[in-house]
């Protein structure tokens, strides 16, 4: 039994590096940049690209925890409603004289609470599956927002609040900087910490993870709570961008977020994908939309293009593995 095993990873890293999904995304982004630059003279300009990020980064905050959720084979379709509820609570409180900083903290707390409720329901009622639970809470959370604000909108936030969604630190948009910080934090959480490793384990094989001492339920609750928290962060930025809020904001955000995560190469079958992929997908979709918007492509064409892109991107790995199996056989 004089077996010697290698622990030097270098020689293993080289292969497969080029074929990684993330590189395909990078290639797509480059192609998209070339195409958009040719379509519109306004696209490839620092100011424009920079400002474009302010337009699509708000929902990107939810992409970060959604990577964890989809990685574990779950889904959360209530995030749009959580944005609405936390934003409406913040606006309503401010309108009733609560100081803005406190209202913002409560906004974050409300989002966190909503996420926690989702998580608890999902682990307590496993037979329901996350789709059903969040389908119900999606209606309930937005319903509460309607009860609170009725047909009103609240706004007139203090002028500094506009800073979040519209201003720059140096020459960089504040939202971009905050997103970068969160993206790095979530990336480290997923790829460098025991927590992230366990999320991967749950995604690949929840039973084995549980038998290996991973507290699956606890991790799920934490991740759904994080999704709630990040929805509230989105609410802060979105509210700042809109300067006011009402119960019907952020409708349909959940599907856009899910589409970005899936395009980012995170497998809904669980356990595959990396944070960088999802972040690349955020910028790919964001700049693609922006670029096509610059040449005034119609909304319906955009729908077709983005829907098609999603289908093709999930079909490619499927077909690849299919044909790989056939070749082996």
């Amino acid at each position, binding site marked *: 039994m004089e077996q010697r095993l290698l622990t030097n990873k270098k020689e293993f890293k080289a292969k497969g590096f080029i074929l990684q999904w993330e590189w395909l995304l990078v290639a797509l982004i480059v192609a998209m940049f070339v195409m958009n630059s040719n379509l519109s003279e306004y696209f490839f300009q620092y100011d424009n690209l920079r400002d474009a990020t302010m337009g699509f980064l708000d929902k990107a905050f939810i992409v970060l925890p959604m990577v964890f959720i989809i990685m574990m084979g779950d889904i959360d379709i209530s995030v749009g409603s959580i944005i609405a509820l936390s934003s409406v609570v913040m606006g309503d409180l401010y309108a009733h004289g609560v100081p803005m900083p406190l209202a913002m903290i409560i906004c974050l707390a409300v989002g966190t609470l909503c996420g926690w409720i989702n998580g608890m329901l999902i682990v307590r009622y496993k037979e329901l599956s996350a789709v059903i639970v969040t389908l119900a809470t999606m*209606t309930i959370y937005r319903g509460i927002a309607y009860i609170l604000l009725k047909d009103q909108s609240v706004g007139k936030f203090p002028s500094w609040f506009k800073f979040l969604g519209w201003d720059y630190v140096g020459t960089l948009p504040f939202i971009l900087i905050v997103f970068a910080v969160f993206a790095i934090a979530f990336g480290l959480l997923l790829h460098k910490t025991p927590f992230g490793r366990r999320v991967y384990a749950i995604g690949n094989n929840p039973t084995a993870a549980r038998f290996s001492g991973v507290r699956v339920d606890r991790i799920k609750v934490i991740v759904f709570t994080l999704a709630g928290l990040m929805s509230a962060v989105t609410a802060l930025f979105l509210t700042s961008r809109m300067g006011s809020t009402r119960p019907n904001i952020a409708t349909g955000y959940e599907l856009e977020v*899910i589409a970005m995560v899936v395009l980012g190469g995170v497998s809904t079958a669980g356990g595959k994908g990396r944070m960088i992929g999802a972040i690349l997908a955020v910028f790919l979709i964001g700049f693609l939309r922006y670029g096509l918007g610059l040449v005034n492509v119609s909304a319906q064409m955009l*729908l077709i293009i983005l829907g098609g892109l*999603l289908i093709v991107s999930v079909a490619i790995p*499927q077909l690849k593995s299919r044909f790989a199996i056939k070749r082996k056989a």
Partner: protein
Amino acid sequence: MSANVQSASPTEGKASTGRTISALIAKFRELGLLAFIVILAVGVQFRNPSFLTWENLTDIATNTAILSILSVGMMLVIITRGIDLSIGATLAFAGMVSALTVKHNPGLNPVAALLIGVGIGIGCGLVIGFLVSWVKILPIIATLGIMNVFRGFTFEASGGKWVSAHQMPTSFKSIATGSFLGINNLILIAIVIYIVAYYFVSHTRTGRRIYAVGSNPDSAEVSGIRTGRILLLVYTIMGGLAGLAGVLWVSKFASAQGDTASGYELSVIAACVLGGVSIAGGVGKISGILLGSILLGILNNALPMINVSAFWQMFIQGAIILIAVLVNALVKRGIDRNNLMRRKI
């Protein structure tokens, strides 16, 4: 604890009584839903005496017909462990194409218009079925993407215009408004579809195999069921029904828009879930989704009638869905516990 000395073999003794109880509980689920509907109806009646009138009941039935038709397809999809988010878009696309067709050919037989819608729907369903069964994309993702594509097609087809009442021949509009033997056509069509669907899922081989595939895909493969074909079939049926619903929708409201039935898929899924269709697959009854659709239909009809504030409606609907699925889960646990107690260990 030695009570089972005599009934050592699992083939004897108290086993059967235990099963009757659990069967009762299982039935109780639907009875419970029915009871809930009855209580709701009585409560509403108390607040608004015109609720339980023949006319209002007909209205509820007419308004619920399309939802209930779609629930049939969605139930089959969910039974196979899938989901279809694209039906709103398919419905709009099929509705728009058939409306455009009758607009340009006012003499067209309404049955032909129906067939065109169904045909478009089947085509859409086939695409999804192919993506799910052959390319093996998860249903939720495949239909999420396809939903956008079909919605885009609908806008493209209409060129941003609506097809309005005066552009549709009376024959086309009377698909939904006409009646036969005093019963509205929509209700009749829904009834026919429910009868056919009931026959299909409980009296044909293919129907039962849909359940088999959802209940245990691996065994289904081993016992010789072509699971891929079943999936393709299920999404095709869903598409066909969505296409049919599209024509009925356009005919009923005498208007075809690009954003017709946007978000309607969630109501349909909710009806199925209320009706006890399990997202885990393999479980779902025609009677269940009928009750689920009716419950949603009654809510849609009753909440405005008892003057519930518009701002509370959404919350109430969500809360009722959540409560219904939680109760469902608890009842199921009761059944399982009952099965365990039966083992007498």
